[in-house]
């Protein structure tokens, strides 16, 4: 931890050539989804960047996010980044356990007070503190404690960012996201179930490079990766515009790779980089594999009205609602109609023949 030399120097000492460094900068720019023209600026920033201390807390989560991260191309450039951050606490990855692990956390917090980066995956249960604890400390308590002196927080995965699956209706644990608890720290959400590995490392790279968090959208996500929705970037988009849809997963449309909107694809409301960066080292992404987007990088994606119902359909049974409306409407309409008829017949019954004498007002004549 005392090894806190500027990155440029550290790399040179590791025997990385300037060419290698430039290559690193070019791929880092690409990783951060920044234009290649930014490479000189990135090189300059990275030259003097210092490795930050990172504390990684895992709460109500499935470890999918960590899996995703470790499935990224380690030991690689991302690995290099991790070489250049000081991952001081990550209870899944670290060698230490028990008291030693907690001690490492506390030491890192103390040493880097106000400067360390906090990464969280998993949601925090508010229902009962006992639902999820680490070393007997409730998630809520630990989050508050670690967040207090953090420079910034990265909420990795939809659970940490928006509550995710634990938050899904009926949310038995009272799960909430990080930003619902911590209000006074810069938080960047990196949602996805899990997020794309290079997106996680890209955000870390950004912090490493520029010492601050990237520009965010209205849901706290880095615009560089979540600035476009899947639908707009989808290679099947032309089929949507032409009105060519797969109606089942085994029809002609599905085989021909037509648009999956009718099969419940949530691409139009999902902001993520899947359609461009893709998964598995840029191999493919769900839509390319023939399945609609689930919208996993969006809040409440689990409750979006069924993965296989089209986005424009109601999340409730409209036909039943309409049937109720028709029944009530018919009854109310008939009642009102009968009232009107009675009123009209009353007027008719009260009719007194109009004679010519009645055509002028008394006061007028």
């Amino acid at each position, binding site marked *: 931890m005392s090894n806190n030399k500027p990155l440029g120097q550290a790399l040179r000492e590791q025997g990385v050539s300037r060419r290698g460094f430039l290559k690193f900068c070019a791929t880092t720019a690409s990783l951060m989804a920044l234009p290649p023209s930014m490479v000189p600026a990135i090189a300059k920033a990275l030259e003097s960047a210092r490795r930050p201390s990172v504390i990684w807390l895992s709460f109500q989560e499935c470890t999918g996010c960590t899996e995703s991260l470790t499935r990224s191309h380690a030991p690689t450039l991302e690995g290099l980044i991790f070489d250049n951050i000081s991952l001081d606490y990550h209870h899944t990855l670290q060698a230490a356990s028990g008291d030693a692990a907690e001690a490492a956390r506390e030491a890192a917090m103390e040493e880097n007070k106000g400067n360390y980066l906090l990464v969280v995956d998993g949601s925090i249960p508010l229902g009962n503190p006992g639902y999820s604890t680490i070393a007997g400390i409730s998630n809520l308590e630990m989050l508050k404690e670690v967040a207090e002196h953090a420079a910034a927080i990265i909420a990795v995965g939809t659970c940490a960012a928006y509550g995710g699956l634990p938050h899904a209706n009926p949310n038995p644990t009272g799960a909430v996201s990080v930003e619902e608890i911590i209000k006074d720290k810069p938080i960047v959400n990196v949602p996805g179930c899990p997020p794309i590995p290079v997106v996680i490392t890209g955000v870390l790279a950004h912090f490493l490079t520029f010492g601050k968090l990237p520009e965010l959208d209205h849901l706290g996500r880095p615009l560089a990766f979540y600035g476009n929705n899947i639908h707009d970037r989808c290679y099947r988009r032309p089929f949507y*515009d032409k009105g060519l849809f797969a109606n089942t997963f085994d029809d002609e449309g599905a085989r021909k790779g037509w648009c999956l909107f009718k099969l419940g694809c949530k691409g139009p409301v999902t902001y993520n980089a899947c359609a461009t960066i893709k998964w598995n080292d840029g191999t493919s992404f769900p839509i390319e594999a023939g399945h609609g987007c689930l919208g996993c990088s969006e809040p409440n994606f689990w409750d979006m009205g069924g993965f296989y119902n089209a986005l*424009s359909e109601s999340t409730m049974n409209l036909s039943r609602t309409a049937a109720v409306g028709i029944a009530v409407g018919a009854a109310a309409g008939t009642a009102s109609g*009968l009232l009107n008829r009675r009123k009209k017949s009353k007027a008719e019954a009260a009719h007194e023949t109009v004679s010519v004498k009645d055509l002028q007002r008394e006061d007028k004549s």
Partner: protein
Amino acid sequence: MNSAEFLLWVRGPGLNIALVIFTIGMLIRLLEIFMLGRKQNLAELRANGVSAGLRTIFTRSTPADKNSMRRSMFTFVAGYGFHIGLFVVIFLLTPHIQLIQSLLGFGWPALPTPVVDLFTVIALISLMALLWRRLTHPVVRYLSTPQDYLVWAATFLPLLTGYMSYHHLWFPYSWLLGVHILSVEFLLILFPFTKLTHAFTLFISRWYTGMMAGEKGVAS
């Protein structure tokens, strides 16, 4: 409330509330009309009014004659632009058909989205032209009540927000889509209580007028 929760609400409870108010309200309106009844025509008829009534239901969608069309040209052009545009947008856009299909159990083919987009623009421009006319033409201005402006806005908003959603203009898409659906719900709720009812009752009006004229041997 974030955009996803908002979207969830408008797609679920919001839409259901609007739909139930719409169906109940419209049925009340229609039953109120029909149940008022009408006296049988005892005069010797020149022709059966039924075919004339059915005919008028369709013919009133076109101008009565060339000169009438010329005199009301603005209303005709803007009116057609708006109504045809609105029809195409509502009934020939895939997501809308999908929604209707989930309600009725059957659907029909859609138009390509760029075509629907064009019709949206036509409808929007026509609506703005009609508003301009409402504000400036002595007759329409004289007739206009606050309800006319309210209904104008309620019709304009779904088109505008739909257009903005499709093109991702100015606001995050999820919010736009939510606001779009909410604006439609607002329209549905207003529907039975305003002149919007004409979308249904005009067929009744045309039927009665066409039939009564037809019985006298006049093609109305």
